[in-house]
């Protein structure tokens, strides 16, 4: 679902890269901004002073803190707790209309984690999820940057091209996916009709495990390119024209200009965009759920669709197992984000890091 939320987050991500003038202006007041929780005689005084200085900031963030605490924090803690139990559909609390059956699941310690991590299933899905994420992001990025470069010139009908190219973004993903299902239909879909018309043999787009993987990636790329395109177009336009002019005077080839000016110029935006698309793609539910339902033979199920199935489609419903998958997915994502950030830092790109 995050796909649609694309650019804003870029703005957000980009925003954080902007030198936050605000904090600097205020920094003097704060002094050492350590949390005032250290035990000791000074703690209370510090808290009081903190309140006096920061009460307005705290009031301003209070609604969000409260809301996140209640609707994210609480379920998260509960979800964590479930992963240490054997909760499934037959032992959780059920409010069957006038009858209520109390929860009777039991604490099982780390058993769920042991089961998930020692079985091959999770690892199989993880491998495919990584392949899926990397392919989608790389292909989308290359196509997005290419098209952005093409659009970023004097071309007749440019605004028409632009509108056409971002159309996939304008349509809710769950609608487009159904359109693709029709096109992919093995027996009567238009893709196979076109192939056969061209003298080629029809493909098992969604029924052969390999081609199904290709197909879901293609659809996700189709959905993701507009966002990349817009983000990259923005980045390209922020590169000063003088740089190209100067380079050309020095006799730089087109390739050199691209390598030495364009790429560095879009680097900071790319860093953010790639990180965000990676996370979104990793969590991309609707494309796979609606296009193949994870099939054939579960070959296109990524971690999140499998976790969903465990809790809501497989019978009996394994809530504890699904929650365990969810927690592991989250840990993986956080690790990824940390590593990514460190890698950027090491390359000396302070702007790209938060």
């Amino acid at each position, binding site marked *: 679902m995050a796909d649609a939320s694309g650019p804003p987050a870029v703005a957000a991500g980009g925003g954080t890269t902007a030198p936050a003038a605000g904090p600097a202006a205020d920094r003097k007041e704060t002094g050492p901004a350590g949390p005032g929780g250290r035990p000791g005689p000074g703690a209370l005084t510090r808290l009081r002073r903190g309140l006096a200085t920061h009460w307005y900031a705290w009031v301003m963030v209070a609604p969000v803190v409260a809301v996140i605490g209640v609707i994210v924090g609480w379920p998260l803690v509960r979800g964590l707790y479930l992963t240490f139990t054997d909760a499934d559909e037959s032992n959780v609390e059920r409010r069957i209309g*006038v*009858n209520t059956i109390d929860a009777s699941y039991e604490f099982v310690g780390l058993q769920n984690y042991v089961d998930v991590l020692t079985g091959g299933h999770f690892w199989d899905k993880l491998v495919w999820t990584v392949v899926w994420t990397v392919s989608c992001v790389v292909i989308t990025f290359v196509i997005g940057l290419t098209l952005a470069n093409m659009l970023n010139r004097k071309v007749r009908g440019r605004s028409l091209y632009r509108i056409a190219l971002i159309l996939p973004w304008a349509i809710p993903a769950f609608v487009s996916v159904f359109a693709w299902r029709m096109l992919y239909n093995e027996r009567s879909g238009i893709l196979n009709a076109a192939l056969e018309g061209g003298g080629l043999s029809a493909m098992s787009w969604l029924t052969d495990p390999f081609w199904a993987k290709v197909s879901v990636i293609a659809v996700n790329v189709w959905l993701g390119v507009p966002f990349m395109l817009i983000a990259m177009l923005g980045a390209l336009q922020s590169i000063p024209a003088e740089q190209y002019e100067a380079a050309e005077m020095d006799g730089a080839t087109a390739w050199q200009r691209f390598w030495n000016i364009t790429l560095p110029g879009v680097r900071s935006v790319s860093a953010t965009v790639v990180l965000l698309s990676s996370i979104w793609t990793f969590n991309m539910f609707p494309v796979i759920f609606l296009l193949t339902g994870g099939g054939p033979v579960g070959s296109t199920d990524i971690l999140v669709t499998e976790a969903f199935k465990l809790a809501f489609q497989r*019978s009996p419903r394994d809530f504890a197992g699904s929650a365990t998958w969810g927690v592991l997915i989250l840990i993986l994502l956080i690790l990824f984000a940390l590593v990514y950030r460190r890698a950027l830092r090491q390359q000396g790109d302070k702007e790209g890091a938060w």
Partner: protein
Amino acid sequence: MRRSIGTTAAIAALALTATACGSDGDDAGSGGDGTVTVTYWDTSNETEAKVFRAVAEEFAEGRDDVEVDYVNIGWDGAQDRFKNAAPTGEAPHVMRTEVAWVSDFASLDYLAPLDGTPAVENQDDYLEQAWASTQYDGTTYAVPQVIDTLALFYNKQLLDEAGVDVPESLTDIQDSVDAFEELEAPFYLRGDDAYWFLPYLYGEGGDLVDADSETVTVDDAAGVAAFQAVQDLLDSGAAITDTTDGWESMMSSFGNGDVAMMINGPWAINDARDAIGAENLGVAPVPAGSAAQGSPQGGWNYGVYAGLGEADMSAAQEFVAYMSSAEVQQRITEELSLLPTRSSVYEAESVAANEMVEFFAPAVEVAHERAWIPQANSLFDPLKEEAEAMLLGRATPEETTAAIADRYRELLDWQ
């Protein structure tokens, strides 16, 4: 600015209130004026739904204190949807429950026991087989609606043109491949639904599990032979299949005359007639395997949600009694050719004269009863998924049955 933010907040608050009110109305239950609205979730297909809706809504006619809210939900997600709704008090009063779901729902306490309630009228009139599917743990949790089984649907004209008799066995179909030169294949083999694999399994004398001895039997010799038979049909060019969108592909292949035969149930009669012409549609028993001729017993029951208050419960029970009455069953058979579950209905003239009933009634009588265990429906996913691997050429019949059996043993904790 201040004002507009205030307005925004007011609108948001209003909308929330509206939301809260709206949702109250959706709750199943009695209104303040003593009127009970019976919510009925129907899973029938588009053609059937028109009739079932009309029939269901007529229940409220002549009753001041009852209304019927007919809701058609897709068969595909129906089990999941009911399972989502039931533990949260959001389930309908009455649910059209597939025969294999009854014990699953009942084991989770989602269905109300119906023994000795008004919902069960004239119990002895029900076909024994149909009644068996309503039992869980010695208690009645549902009332039979329709009973069905699979049969061979064939295109009379195509068979005539090819000069082929209606096949009685899978071997007959394989032998006839050459006669159907102009077709893609003589036979469409449904590859994406576990239910459609059962005739092959029964045809070799096998079964998924043996509930009495609590053993998994799908990987015995008969099981392997059944999957081998499926493989042979495809390899010999006698059959085509798909691992997704099988229903659509099957119906369109049959309707377009790309294949001459398919296996299907009474629910497809009207659609098949529309597609190739009523006079052109023939129905015969499923082709036999090497051991027997066997087709699974299927059908639908009415289940009553366990979480109903007194007034709702008695209205729901009356509704079920009405829907499963002989009159209503007869009417449904007349309009849809579905098979009644009451023996008395078969004696009605209009029913007895129905060509499809004439055929299906004896077929149902010999249909293979499935193990009515809570996991009955959970047996289908592993079967479908592993069979898919075989159809895609990634597993042999032995590997397939072994993989299915492994998953069954894990699921059931049986031998």
